[in-house]
């Protein structure tokens, strides 16, 4: 029951990340999905190492979110060379 609720939330947040309009809106949905995955891993592995891996994953994903949000401010509208 608990795992099913978390799984539905994670899939919903991933779909909203794909179909979002703005770029910083995507960051907020991505953070909510990362919360869900950390809780899901702690519920699936029921040993003390499960808590360690959940903490490690969450802090690492926060560091990468920090770097992405910092460089969103620097790269305003980038030039793409298609065709």
């Amino acid at each position, binding site marked *: 029951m608990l795992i099913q609720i978390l799984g539905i939330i994670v899939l919903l947040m991933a779909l909203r990340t794909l179909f979002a309009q703005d770029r910083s809106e995507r*960051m907020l949905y991505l953070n*909510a999905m990362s919360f869900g995955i950390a809780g899901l891993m702690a519920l699936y*592995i029921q040993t003390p190492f499960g*808590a360690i891996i959940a903490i490690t994953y*969450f802090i690492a994903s926060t*560091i990468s979110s920090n770097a992405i*949000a*910092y460089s969103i*401010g620097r790269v305003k509208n980038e030039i793409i060379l298609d065709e």
Partner: protein
Amino acid sequence: MNEIIAIIIAAVLSWINFVLIDTWMGLPEQPGVRGADVIGRSVKRRGGDLAGGFFQGNIVCSPDASAGTLLASAACYTIGTPEGGLIAAVLVYFGNRLCADPGYAGTTGALSITCIIFAASYIGIGPADFIVGMVLAIVTIQGLHHPLASKLLGRIAEKMGRHTKLT
């Protein structure tokens, strides 16, 4: 049916916990890092409140009391009730300093949710319910509708005297 009521009570408890501690520690006042500034101004441009935008941006850019609540309840579920919260507080402090944040909000949130879990285990709400409840609480802030959530957070910040002075 009994399980759903437990999850709802846990969600309400963890929502009150992390919103009050984050507002008291001054998250809506100023953006700690530069990425939070970008996200806050983007939320304001879409019709929200600036203080609530800074709140959401600070949650994205460094593990604050919301992360402390989730990780402490996960550690209490897998390790044991008093010890897991204390271990999670230390690890959240190191992670907070890696993200250039003082780290007061994360450790305070982890320690207070440990006390709440220890008290709630006598009425039959386990730590596993608090994990699901915390994810439901963060979805109401970050996942449903950003301008409405930021207006609510801005009103709470104004009531506690922590509204931003930037424009």
